[in-house]
């Protein structure tokens, strides 16, 4: 196999104060705030800092530092990482939208980049005209587009409106058309940034299917960036985990995702109370206990499947409210909901001053072993959320063994053993 792309010691430095966010409006605002009004840069405070400590001069920040890797021809690489880890910057440099500060990138073959769906669409032009426009911007020649026009139109599913200006399109149709053009690009190297989650469910499936064909069947080199772990797993063989502008892990996609999600895990230290987010200023929460404990890890060996939840606090007004809970798996997929008041006709009214709520959640005994996350909520169902405690506790269920001696794990068997 030959190398298709080579990143040699790539770094990208941004100067604080001139650092670019993604949108022009932000930049204009920043320019206005800093240069004209002499205020602090409004975006730096919320922006993420990429390992600034390594650099002596704190005026600079490294968005990417010493990135070094090779991609074989025909490889499908998924790049994952938190927001601001440097994923998009990396793809932008490969797409030649912005240049690296140090290092070189070498590539073999035409690079087609898909950092956005429908770049260059003009609202006044028809769908057909925009296919040509967008195609040409992405690097196709006119004859290539003409050859593929029918295919593109067919893929987009917008035949009927193809001669209508795209300003009359629904946003979903626009995105379909844009993706359809991009999906029919023919470069040797394809760079795709977070554009798979477009359109309705049907189209998303189609889009991911198309990307699978492109990356598997046609032997093209593809670099994906996405936060959708399921599609990344389906599409990519190799994964790269970026963290604070550096490569933290490079290996199979499965391992990479596992490591990434572990990194996502909440800090196990701290109390449940430290995670409380009050959404109303009428409520203050002073104490949260699960099974009489305040810490955020709950070991539940079989047959212990009971959760006693106690929430204490203060109210400024009389409010209808009750405890609800949601159960997630470690990849944040919602599994179940606990909402006792939904079974009652009325939500109890709690009088102002100090209050104490308590509920008991009985998890089904046939729940499989594994790690689950519990989110607690104090709310008036269908009216308002008063407080949320995301990741209130990690539940570690264990020792559930079937009569035949099998220990069923969530990862392999799902949440319940059906009867």
């Amino acid at each position, binding site marked *: 196999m030959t190398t298709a792309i080579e990143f040699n010691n790539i770094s990208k430095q941004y100067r604080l104060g001139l650092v670019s966010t993604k949108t022009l409006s932000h930049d204009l605002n920043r320019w206005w705030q800093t240069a004209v009004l002499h205020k602090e840069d409004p975006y730096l405070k919320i922006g993420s800092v990429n390992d600034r400590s390594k650099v002596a001069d704190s005026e600079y920040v490294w968005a990417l530092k010493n990135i070094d890797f090779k991609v074989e021809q025909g490889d499908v690489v998924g790049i994952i990482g938190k927001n601001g880890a440097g994923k998009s910057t990396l793809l932008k440099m490969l*797409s030649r939208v912005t240049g690296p500060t140090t290092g070189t990138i070498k590539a073999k073959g035409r690079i087609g980049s898909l950092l956005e769906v429908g770049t260059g669409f003009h609202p*006044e*032009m028809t769908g057909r005209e925009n296919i040509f426009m967008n195609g040409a911007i992405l690097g196709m020649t006119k004859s290539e587009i003409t050859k593929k026009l029918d295919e593109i139109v067919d893929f987009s599913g917008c035949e009927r409106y193809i001669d209508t200006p795209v300003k009359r399109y629904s946003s979903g149709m626009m995105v379909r058309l844009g993706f359809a053009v991009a999906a029919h690009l023919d470069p040797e190297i394809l760079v795709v940034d977070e554009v798979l989650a477009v359109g309705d469910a049907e189209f998303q499936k189609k889009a991911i299917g198309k990307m699978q064909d492109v990356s598997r069947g046609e032997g093209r080199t593809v670099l994906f960036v996405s936060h959708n772990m399921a599609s990344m797993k389906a599409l990519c063989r190799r994964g790269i985990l970026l963290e604070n502008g550096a490569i933290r892990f490079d290996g199979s996609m499965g391992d990479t995702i596992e490591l990434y999600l572990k990194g996502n895990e909440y800090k196990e230290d701290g109390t449940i109370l430290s995670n409380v987010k009050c959404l109303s200023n009428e409520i203050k929460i002073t104490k949260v206990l699960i099974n009489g404990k305040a810490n955020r890890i709950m070991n539940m060996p079989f047959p212990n499947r009971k959760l006693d939840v106690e929430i204490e606090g203060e109210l400024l007004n009389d409010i209808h409210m009750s405890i609800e809970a949601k159960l997630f798996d470690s990849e944040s997929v919602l599994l179940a909901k606990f909402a006792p008041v939904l079974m009652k006709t009325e939500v109890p009214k709690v009088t102002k001053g100090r209050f104490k709520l308590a509920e008991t959640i009985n998890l089904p005994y046939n729940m499989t072993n594994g790690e689950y996350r519990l989110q607690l909520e104090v709310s008036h169902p269908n009216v308002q959320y008063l407080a949320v405690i995301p990741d209130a506790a990690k539940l570690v269920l264990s020792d559930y063994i079937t009569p035949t001696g099998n220990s069923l794990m969530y990862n392999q068997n799902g949440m319940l053993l059906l009867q």
Partner: protein
Amino acid sequence: MAQTVSENENWTTIIKPRTGLFEVNLKEIWDYRDLLTLFVKRDITVQYKQTVLGPLWWLIQPALTVIMYMVVFGGIAGIPTDGVPQPLFYLAGVCMWQYFADCLTKTSNTFVSNAGIFGKVYFPRLIMPLSNVTSNLVRFGIQFGLFVIVYIYYAIIGLAPSPNWYFLLFPLLVVMMAGLALGFGIIISSLTTKYRDLQILFSFIVQLWMYATPIVYPLSQVVGKQKWGIDVAKVMCLNPVTPIIETFKHGALGAGEFIGWGWLAYSFTFMIVTLGIGVLIFNKVQKSFMDTV
């Protein structure tokens, strides 16, 4: 060892932190010629979509401008037009100047107004200003058609001024206009990525520039005049647009005297130098402008 192997391979794309000053990839621009034509087509068709009069607006604008000039400069101010009928004199100036000014303002916005596209996809950035200049050329062609029609009208009623051989320079003059506008435009666009003040200042300067160019008055009005011991006409000819406009008016309308090959060569050199500097700066800026725009 891997390093040495890879260096022997044939990389088609090498992305480096800085490009050399003179690495302007003209072949790449040629490869994207389809995109250029599409941009030109877009600029032309989109401008008057959903209007009733459509491209007629391209004729209405200069026509109204000329009428205004006839009233203000020809009528109220009483500025002579070298014996040429006023509509022809003003129309010649307006068409030429409008082409220059449109190219200039549009091109000088290249980076700022296209940041959305430029931030998402790569294509040779010079395609944008080149398409501006080309699409404005179409517009200029249509407006020049108006000039020809008015000329024919005056020929029929027997008042047409006689053109001369200098008129054959016309294509060269248009190229010089385009080159100057492109050159100045891309220099400004490169500088405005960091400092938008220039953009505001520049749109203002373009307005003033018109009055420093013999559009609404003939150059013959200032010939021989002295101010602080300086020949005013000579100073005005330092404006590279002046010789172009004057040559055109002289060639097409026989207005005034031929400005002389010296001044024309000066304008031409000015155009080449501006364009050269422009392309170099533009090339330099396009690499990093996304971080500063």
